[in-house]
């Protein structure tokens, strides 16, 4: 059994060697496609056939298939590490790293060209492939693709060029031979077509009818022809060209008008918004001014209140009682929130309420005697703001009576009567009331 097995192994090895020899012969004849075929068979029979593997790598390299070549040599080295020719090939490649980089670039461009072609961008694919085959003239697949693209674009002379280059590398490349056949058929059909056309043209020439004799126009006829031509030209310009130009211009103008309208509308909107803003700013300004006036008005503002208090306090300290209480009566305490202010005010008011009012009442009576009724009324009203006394009520009633305001005067008289009817002022008030109620004759 072992001997039979050994015989079998031997026969397999022999078959492998036989395929290798065939592959070698084909490679020498530059029939690289068939060389690959036989060498692959050799390796399927015996993968340890180092010579076949190394030759296969070499053939791949010659066809521009660098990756395939490297793969075979690396596998060869791994399977048979002793004195292997693959070492030499690999070190040759490694010694030129640029070569590997160039080869890689070419591969990428080839793949890109394939992608362009499949997407319908044949022109781009052609440009890529022209670059690739110029840098790698042995790249058979590249020539094949380029030939196909030229065939598709009907650039038949370029097809022929690519195929010739390809067949110099790989004499019996099946794809190239097929494309060549295709090209031959196309050229033949084209020649037949041209022959037929030529025949037809010849026939037409023979059957050509001789034209009538043609005489040149002379003199005034030429002028008339020129004038007619000019007229036609003007008519064409007038009826065809100008309207088109005008239409185009109108269209452009309309477009411009629309654009400007939009701009104007946008600006108008902006103006409206700004005006609205201005309005609210104005209102805010007026309100702010109002607030400021409230504070700064010398007669009624808050500053004025502080002023009055200050003066009241100053006059009081200077023992000018009348002046002090006069100022005090001018204060509106409800306008002030300041507790210090209110405290000072309250102190002075308490004094005014207790006996300070008398200064004002006396001043009012004195003014009455002096016939200064306005002043009298002022003093007496202020006095009443501190304390309601029948004396003040009567005096104010009298001042109003003298001013002609009988109704108000009666009112004050009545108040005096109601307050202290039996006082001196009360009695005087009754007398005055009686007089006022007596009809005049």
């Amino acid at each position, binding site marked *: 059994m072992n001997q039979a*097995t050994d015989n*079998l*192994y031997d026969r*397999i090895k022999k*078959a*492998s060697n036989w395929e290798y020899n065939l592959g070698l012969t084909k490679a020498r004849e530059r029939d690289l496609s068939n060389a690959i075929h036989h060498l692959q068979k050799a*390796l*399927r*029979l*015996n*993968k*340890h056939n180092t010579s076949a593997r190394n030759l296969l790598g070499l053939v791949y390299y010659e066809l521009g*298939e*660098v*990756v*395939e070549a*490297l*793969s075979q040599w*690396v*596998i060869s080295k791994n*399977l048979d590490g002793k004195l292997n020719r693959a070492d030499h090939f690999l070190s040759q490649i490694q010694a030129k790293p640029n070569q*590997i980089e160039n*080869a*890689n670039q070419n*591969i*990428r461009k*080839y*793949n890109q060209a*394939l992608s362009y*072609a*499949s997407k319908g961008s044949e022109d781009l694919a052609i440009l890529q492939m022209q670059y690739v085959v110029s840098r790698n003239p042995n790249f058979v*697949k590249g020539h*094949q*693709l380029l030939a*196909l693209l030229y*065939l*598709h674009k009907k650039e038949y002379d370029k097809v022929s060029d690519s195929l010739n280059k390809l067949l110099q590398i790989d004499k019996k490349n099946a794809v190239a031979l*097929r*494309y060549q056949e*295709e090209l031959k*058929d196309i050229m033949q059909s084209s020649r037949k077509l041209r022959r037929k056309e030529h025949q037809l043209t010849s026939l037409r020439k023979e059957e050509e009818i001789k034209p009538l004799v043609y005489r040149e126009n002379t003199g005034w006829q030429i002028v008339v022809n020129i004038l007619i031509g000019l007229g036609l030209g003007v008519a064409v310009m007038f009826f065809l060209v100008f309207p088109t130009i005008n239409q185009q211009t109108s269209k452009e103008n309309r477009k411009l008008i629309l654009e400007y309208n939009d701009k104007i509308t946008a600006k108008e909107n902006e103006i409206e918004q700004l005006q609205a803003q201005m309005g609210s700013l104005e209102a805010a300004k007026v309100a702010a001014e109002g607030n400021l006036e409230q504070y700064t008005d010398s007669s009624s503002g808050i500053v004025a209140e502080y002023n009055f208090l200050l003066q009241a306090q100053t006059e009081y300290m200077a023992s000018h009682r009348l002046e002090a209480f006069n100022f005090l009566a001018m204060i509106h305490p409800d306008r002030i929130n300041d507790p210090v202010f209110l405290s000072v005010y309250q102190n002075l008011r308490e004094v005014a309420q207790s006996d300070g009012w008398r200064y004002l009442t006396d001043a009012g009576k004195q003014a009455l005697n002096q016939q200064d009724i306005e002043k009298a009324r002022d003093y007496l009203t202020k006095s009443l703001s501190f304390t309601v006394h029948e004396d003040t009520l009567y005096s104010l009633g009298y001042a109003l009576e003298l001013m002609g305001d009988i109704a108000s005067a009666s009112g004050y008289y009545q108040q005096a009567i109601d307050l202290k009817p039996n006082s001196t002022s009360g009695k005087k008030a009754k007398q005055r009331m009686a007089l006022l109620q007596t009809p005049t004759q």
Partner: protein
Amino acid sequence: MIDFEKELEKFSPSLEINEVEDSILNSDLTDMSDILRELLNEMEEKR
């Protein structure tokens, strides 16, 4: 008549240099000797 699209489909992208390792690893190195050896082993096991 060559159909451009069909012909184009026959073209496959080439491997780049950095794909050498994958190419080697994916290579089927089974040869006739391996198949024969397997057959013999099976025969031995059946015995």
